């Protein structure tokens, strides 16, 4: 892991994230969002969390980005009438960025180097999920089922 690799991955990631936040065309913004998430997954790989990086690619780019594209196509007739940005929100975002950046570079206790770690294998993650984390796992399964049913009920045609 070297700083140059992190910077090389971070620059296109942040450029894509900024493009996703500012582009006028909704479809272009969604594609930039997907590129930014690929960059985040690459940072996860660099940090030694390969499994989380793969999960991020599968879930966000495979499911969430495609779902957003479908929603854009379903609500297409409205696109183009949403001109104008809220400058108060933009100012707040810049203020949050400045404040947090100042706090990060001011705090000495986060200027640490990563210790050596044994690679996290999928076997270890699976063992943890099936033993000490089996209860949270079941709760997430229940939550996903509820979300699926809730989403279906929300978009069902209303009976007149």
């Amino acid at each position, binding site marked *: 892991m070297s700083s140059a690799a992190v910077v090389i991955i971070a620059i296109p990631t942040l450029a894509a994230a900024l493009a996703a936040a500012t582009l006028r065309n909704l479809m272009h913004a969604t594609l930039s969002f997907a590129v930014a998430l690929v960059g985040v997954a690459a940072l996860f790989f660099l940090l030694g*969390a390969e499994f989380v990086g793969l999960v991020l690619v599968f879930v966000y780019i495979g499911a969430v980005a495609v779902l957003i594209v479908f929603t854009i196509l379903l609500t297409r007739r409205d696109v183009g009438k949403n001109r104008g940005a809220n400058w108060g929100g933009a100012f707040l975002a810049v203020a949050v960025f400045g404040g947090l950046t100042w706090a990060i570079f001011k705090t000495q206790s986060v200027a640490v180097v990563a210790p050596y*770690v044994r690679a996290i294998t999928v076997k270890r993650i699976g063992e943890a999920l099936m033993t000490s984390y089996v209860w949270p796992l079941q709760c997430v399964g229940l939550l*996903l089922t509820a979300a699926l049913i809730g989403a279906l009920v929300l978009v069902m045609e209303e009976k007149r």
Partner: protein
Amino acid sequence: MTPTLQLFLFVSVALFSAGLLAALSRRHAIFILIGIEMMLAAANLNFIAFWRFSPQSQAVTGVLIAIFSIAIAAAEAAVGLALVIAVYRHYRTTNVDRLDQLKG
């Protein structure tokens, strides 16, 4: 040169601010959802970075909380987009400024 935790936290803050910019300054409901998803991705990056740089990084807790967080974010995105479609069907618009009445 090995990177410090500060570099990853800075990337995470920049990603979070881009998400906040999208969520606060846009009027389109799908843009707001994209912004929220970017903020969640920044939070996940923080989880993984703090796990990797902590003295107890042998434990798998940091990885597991990131996985659970991604699963919950996916559920949130599905329900959020369903809400956008339901609102569009009712009001024929996705501009959040024009959704200003509680009566349907």
